[in-house]
């Protein structure tokens, strides 16, 4: 962090310029506020205000025509009996506990695979990353096409194994699994790049020293790479957990791929909140749900902070 007193100017300041120095400092402060103001105001209006509003709004119930009545904690009480909500929480948690660890392990595996040079390594990295460049809408439509019952490319390729008639998106048991798999495919290249950055920061000498001492590949990973990669792992894990619960892939992909179906098996919480707000006009209830999700995220991030010992997060 930069010190507040700039040694350069402090030294160069002439002794008789007390008045000028003050006005100079004031000018600098004014410039500072002016430079920060547009972004700060924008963030307050479009991020801060909505957050505060979500809390307030959760105490009201909307009538669907733009009117609101004070409802106290009714919205929160309503949650207890909302079976669809509990279903969507279950979906989100299942999605989270499969997507986050699996995605992490695969991304880390890819990062380790392409860490050192081999001919064409640049291209291989690029190809792993490529799905992430494309929008989730395109990704969703493309996979829907590939998974079309009986006719799609995936069933066709599985036919020789006797699995050609499996319905991936029509079967509640498989739809969520497909969503997880596609999410991993979409995100693994991005996570790989970040982990690759972390791996490159680990001095080669450490591993060499361990190798000389006779450490196996697994031991080198376990005792040298893994501890040093902790800050990066922390970042990736927090990122993908937040993404799994409230990220765009938990909405965009669901919207395009399954619309929450079949039988609510892929209806994530954010998708459910969207429906409550924009299909049923229950803004108050949607806001209350939002408040609960944010609370959950704070707790989950805290737990992960403990589990990974925080990393060096500034």
């Amino acid at each position: 962090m930069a010190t507040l007193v700039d040694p350069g100017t402090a030294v160069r300041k002439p002794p008789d310029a007390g008045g000028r120095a003050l006005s100079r400092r004031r000018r600098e402060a004014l410039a500072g506020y002016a430079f920060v103001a547009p972004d700060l105001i924008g963030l307050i209006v479009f991020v801060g205000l909505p957050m505060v509003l979500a809390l307030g709004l959760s105490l009201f119930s909307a009538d669907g025509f733009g009117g609101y009545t004070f409802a106290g904690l009714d919205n929160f009480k309503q949650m207890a009996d909302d079976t669809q909500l509990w279903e969507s929480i279950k979906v989100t948690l299942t999605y989270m506990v499969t997507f986050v660890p699996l995605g992490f392990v695969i991304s880390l595996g890819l990062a380790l695979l392409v860490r050192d040079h081999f001919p064409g390594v640049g291209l291989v990295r690029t190809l792993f990353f490529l799905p992430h460049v494309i929008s989730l809408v395109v990704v969703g439509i493309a996979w829907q096409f590939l998974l079309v019952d009986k006719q799609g490319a995936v069933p066709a390729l599985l036919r020789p194994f006797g699995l050609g008639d499996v319905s991936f998106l029509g079967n509640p048991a498989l739809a969520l699994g497909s969503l997880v798999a596609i999410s991993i495919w979409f995100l693994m290249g991005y996570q790989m790049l970040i982990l690759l950055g972390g791996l490159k920061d680990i001095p080669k000498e450490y591993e060499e020293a361990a190798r000389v001492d006779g450490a196996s590949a697994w031991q080198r990973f376990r005792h040298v790479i893994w501890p040093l990669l902790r800050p990066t792992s922390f970042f990736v894990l927090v990122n993908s957990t937040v993404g799994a619960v409230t990220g765009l892939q938990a909405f965009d992909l669901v919207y395009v791929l399954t619309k929450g179906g079949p039988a609510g098996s892929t209806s994530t919480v954010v998708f459910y909140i969207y429906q409550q707000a924009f299909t049923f006009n229950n803004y108050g209830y949607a806001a209350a749900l939002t408040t609960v999700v944010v609370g959950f995220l704070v707790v989950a991030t805290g737990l992960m902070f403990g589990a990974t010992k925080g990393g060096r997060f500034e």
Partner: protein
Amino acid sequence: MTTKLRALTGYVLATITVAPLIWLLVAVLKPADELFQVALPSRITLDNLLYVLTQVPIGRYMLNSAIVSVAVTAIALVLHSMAAYALARLRFPGRQVIFSVIVSTLLVSLPVILVPLFLVVKELGLLDTYAGLILPAIFHAFGIFLLRQYYLSIPRELEEAADLDGCGYFRRWWQVVLPLSRPILASLAVLFFLANWNAFLWPLTATRDPELRMVQVGIATLQGQYGSAWNYILAATVVAAVPTLIAFVIGQRRLVEAIKTSGLK
């Protein structure tokens, strides 16, 4: 693992990873009745692409996306650079607090504030306007944060020289800092453009008017309209993906740098 084995594993996995995208590209060039055949097309046809380009307002959707993405990128870069410069370099009371507040908004993702944000934008009368699409997309702490870290590493001497030449803060930022930040601005430009071109949830929420549909919303709408006319839906998705691929190819190195640094900070 030996280098050879690693290389081979890499090639195989990379091929599997991009196979779905290649499949999509090939499917678009197939005659409609061969769409689901696991084979190369008997003949290559541009009919599907020509149909969506002429019969579907995909041009309009792409124009909307281009307007919004370019506007957001340009405005965000200027504002973030100004704020980041002040936060890194200028001394004013409350600077630390402001910076902490800005960074703390990093954990807030769009779906979390979607409902109240919608109501704010509605109250401001910005629903179904370009401003309603553009303004909320500009303000994000990520760019400010990254630029600030970058500015902390620029040597102060350069600015001091400008100071001695009598430049005010605005000119120091505009004529010294901004030109020096070209590489990171380029990285962020690719990142912002892609994020906005690919945006779906906010454009879906903030617009009802078909004239204002951005491209992702447009193709999702087609998906509903054309039902099982897969050849047209796929053609539209491929057309919509072309600008992202161009941006990626041009800015690949920059994009990778931005992502790597984002994980290290």
